[in-house]
């Protein structure tokens, strides 16, 4: 059972090599002539000012929170989906009530305008 996961682990390591090796080769093979202008952050037509790590719109944060709720819900649905045939109508109605509560929350978000981007 667990030995099936071993190739996956090896693949992750190999993936790091496939990704990392060309970068290292390129750093060695390419020229390196840094100067101040080249190493400054990209800006169009003027010197970069202010810190780039600035305040950002709270909606991105909101999307992240909503994502956590819904992603957990999906993780919760996974085992249910697999055994649905065995647990029958009882399981279906149980999950229906759970989804209904979530959908009520979803409608509330929608009406509150949490999903609006203007």
């Amino acid at each position, binding site marked *: 059972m667990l030995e099936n996961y071993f190739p996956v682990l090896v693949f992750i390591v190999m993936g790091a090599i496939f990704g990392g090796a060309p970068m290292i080769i390129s750093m060695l093979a390419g020229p390196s002539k840094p100067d101040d202008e080249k190493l400054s952050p990209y800006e169009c037509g003027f010197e970069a000012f202010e810190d780039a790590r600035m305040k950002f719109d709270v909606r991105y944060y909101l999307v992240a929170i909503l*994502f956590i709720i819904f992603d957990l819900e999906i993780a919760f649905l996974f085992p249910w989906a697999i055994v649905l045939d065995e647990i029958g109508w009882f399981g279906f109605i149980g999950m229906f009530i759970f989804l209904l509560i979530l959908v009520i929350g979803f409608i509330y978000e929608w009406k509150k305008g949490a999903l609006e981007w203007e």
Partner: protein
Amino acid sequence: MFDLMREALSFLPQDLVTVLVIISKITIIATPILLSVAYITLLERKVIGYMQVRIGPNRVGPRGLLQPIADGLKLIMKETIIPTKANRVLFILAPVLTFIPAITAFAVVPFDYEMYLSDVDASLLFILAITSMGVYGIIIAGWASNSKYAFLGALRSAAQIVSYEIAMGFALVGVLIAAGSLNLIDIVRAQEGSMLHWYWIPLFPLFVIYYLSGVAETNRAPFDVAEGESEIVAGFHVEYSAMTFSIFFLGEYTAMILISLLTAIMFMGGWLSPFQGIPMLEEMFAFVPGIVWLLAKAFIFLFLFIWFRATYPRYRYDQIMRLGWKVFIPITIVWLLVVGVALLVDLGPWFD
């Protein structure tokens, strides 16, 4: 073939041989993927070229066939620029972090009846988990660059990716209900019968949503606001150059191949022949190995990626978020209930 290798290496310790066999299998899977990424870039430029009544690249090699190799060499020979304000370690790490999830997902993709690297029972869960990791690379790239454009691009990308991830996850749940298994091999076997047994019919809305979410997840046109050139230059990878940039590129195209393969596996019967169950044609095409069917189906979806890019203008950001949250998620939730009921009443040839 691998038994032969095991025998030839039998003088080595058993565990080492096992690892060597796994490594060679991974190489056999990964090399064609990386090569096809190179040639998809050429295909994309050619196809878009012809769609816009141009010829596309035609100088390097016959009909431009060596163009991807020239591009690769050029990118290797260019200077890797790490901005002074950037966080060096994270800056270098970010491209690899976007690339690893995209390629590692292939560890559990079945290519034919007996052709897969590992038969993991929770393979779909693994794919959902590992592809979700891709967003970290983008966030880290945007933050580590310490550039306004990169930062904004990363935020947009991340918000877009996580939004579509939800619709994608719900679509996967629909497949799970229908197949009753997390194992991709079992999912394909459950679709056996004929073309009409494939899940694209009972799960049609989920099929469309899964594929479109895949397009949005990989930040491809028409959902490529994250790198809208005229607006925020190139989004999260504006500060990247040479190979560090190409690894992002590689990751994006590998993810495209992955989405195409998964769509083919989950909704289009994977390696199953489209002529199954049709008296004459089934025997006529019996000699075609399953992997050819799988790759042909995946190629259609890959071609659609390119076609979309040539056809549709870019969506506005608020439209993208509206489509993800207000259209896809409600449809998937409703269709999950439909599929659940269909399973419980043993509907048609799909849910018996």
